[in-house]
């Protein structure tokens, strides 16, 4: 019988650490948004962060991520919380840069007052 492990993943503040020190490794080429979108799906980032990077109980919002590309790479290599580390064997710096580009390309959310239903729920 399956169980829900509510607590471990609930605690994940996965990628929402804007204070991370920026990396100083060699800078990858500018990210490829389309490839980033493909990798975002292939690497199953959406499991915890949602298909639009909107976040939820098990992962932080990463659409319009507050880190720069080096910050993202650094975090993915040595994450805090429940997120597992993704080594270079699994995903290269360039691929993470592509994902970064994709996350930055995602549209910013409207403010609630511009969504009639949310405005009503205030």
């Amino acid at each position: 019988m399956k169980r829900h492990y509510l607590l471990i993943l609930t605690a994940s503040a996965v990628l929402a650490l804007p204070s991370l020190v920026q990396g100083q490794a060699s800078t990858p080429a500018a990210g490829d948004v389309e490839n980033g979108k493909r990798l975002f799906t292939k690497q199953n980032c959406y499991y915890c962060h949602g298909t639009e990077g909107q976040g939820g109980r098990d992962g932080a919002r990463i659409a319009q991520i507050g880190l720069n590309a080096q910050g993202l790479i650094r975090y993915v290599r040595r994450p805090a919380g429940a997120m597992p580390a993704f080594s270079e064997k699994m995903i290269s710096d360039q691929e993470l840069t592509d994902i970064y580009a994709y996350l930055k390309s995602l549209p910013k959310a409207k403010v609630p007052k511009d969504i009639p239903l949310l405005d009503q729920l205030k």
Partner: protein
Amino acid sequence: MANSKKGSVNRRGFLKGAAVGAAALVAKPVSSEAQVAQQTAQARVPLPSAALAAAETSPPPPRVDVYSTDRPGADFMVDAIKSLGIEYVAANPGSSFRALHEAIINYGGNKSPELLTCCHEESSVGMAHGYAKIEGKPMMVMAHGTVGLQHASMAIYNAYADRVPVYVVIGNIADGPFRRGDVEWTHAVQDAAAMVRDYTKWDDAPVSLTQFGESAVRAYKIAMTPPMAPVVVVADAVLQEEPVSEEDRRRLRVPKLAVTTPPAGDPDAVSQVAKALVAAETPLIIAGRSARTPNGLKLLVELAELLQAPIMDRRMRMNFPTRHPLYGTGSLAQSDVVLALEVPDLWTVTHSQTPVNRMGMESKPLTKAGAKVFSISSLELLMKSNYQDFGRYNESDLVIAGDAEATLPSLIEACKRLITADRKRVFDQRSAKYAETAKRLRDQALQDAAWAWDASPIATARLSAELWNLVRNEDWSLVSGDGMQSNWPTRLWDFTKHYQFIGAQGAYGIGYGAPAAVGAALANKKYGRLTVNIQNDGDLNYAPGVLWTAAHHHIPLLTVMHNNRAYHQERMYVADMAARAQRDVSRVDIGNALTNPNIDYASMAKGYGMYSVGPIENPAELAPALKKAIDVVKRGEPALVDVVTQPR
């Protein structure tokens, strides 16, 4: 057991005799040579008299019709069950309780209890689980003592861990010679309740009707005394089916139900907690299964407002209004006094753990240094060894064994006696801070909900917002947990009444959601409430036949599928394992995804006779679909809307 009529051959006696006779025939096979010798010997004996010949050749006298009794023991069992005020009995039919089944529908008139036709014993218990959390009393479940109880066992464990009363009556044929063939031998068991004894509160296997009456009442009383839990009574098939003589009928009686008051905490210990709470600068109350009843909710509001102490709600019951300024506005890390009310595994709530948690060493307290932690819980009064739902050892500074709801009145009074004008001023000052935090959290929830607003698959925030907009002016009751939807209902909806939320499984056993929702909806039916279930797709596939039960019994329930097409929690875990092993994360859909083909839940519901629509993938189509389904539910029938959703 009650005696049957003197001189009559009852069914049991007849079958015993028949069995002996048959055994004798089988035990003495006659060979062809022996048959020839026998015939030769017979030729030498004198011819029988006419009377003897007539006796041997005439047809045997008619056997006693064993089904002709008008008062089987099961009738008395129904009397006992009726005395408890049980409204419903959920059952998948089974031969070991067929006499009780028949007595319920005919002798008992199929009313209090009314029989609910279930397609799986897990559904029966799940329904009883949900029903009890709304109605505050148990539903009865009937099942075979063997195969039925095996099906029911996971659901019983859920109810046990959730401290919910379920009244289980199982059939069994204890007396071997009474069993009619292989089926009944394989369905019989020496100690029927043993299978679930680790996660039930009490059981008995009465060997007489008198004892059945007593055990039936005792079981109810035990189930309903906090800490509540499932109980099991074995209804022996011989007792059910054997006739009860007129004389014995007059002697049988059902004992009076003497209700046990809930155990309240020790007054001295309660005074100590009150003293600490009143003196605290930043108290925090953690609520687990604190509010058993509507009064429990009211009492917790009174205590929190008295002290201006915020609530950290584990969402296991409807403990506290979700838009109250004290709801979720505290901080465990900043609190100097923490009071936990009916919180299971409090250690885990108050400590951090890493995902690996090697040797249980990688943890640290989430409370600040020097903080005092108090616990009031009836969980201290019911712990068993084998199943480990008791959690890690509770290191609180003071643990009060008692029911939180029963203890709150004395705690409130003790606090009132200690509150001075100075302390009152401090409390008033901190209330403004919490009101401000509550407003910020509310604004943040609305802003967070705006992300992925137009996404397909549909965001769980959008789903929750659309649904809330349609039910908020109704007398609604959400009967599903909301963790799998990133707690969006809790963040967006305005929960104020006890029946508006009932928590989740208890033991996290999947397959609970659909039947518990049907049971809760049945309890809500007589109050005219609009019952809503946000249904996880994986959960529904365990025993979807409960949809038919809802349709068959006209149970008004809105089921909205959270169809993320996966056992998503497990998928995340396997992804985690793959990443740790530095292997291919992209393969973890294998064994977890519910795709290829996608499951068509609307067709499934339609097949069970329920109004349905979907799959809805475009968020713009969601509100109209939900509205139509709500109209069906308001007319007294169940309806299902299949919504293809984001993972969480």
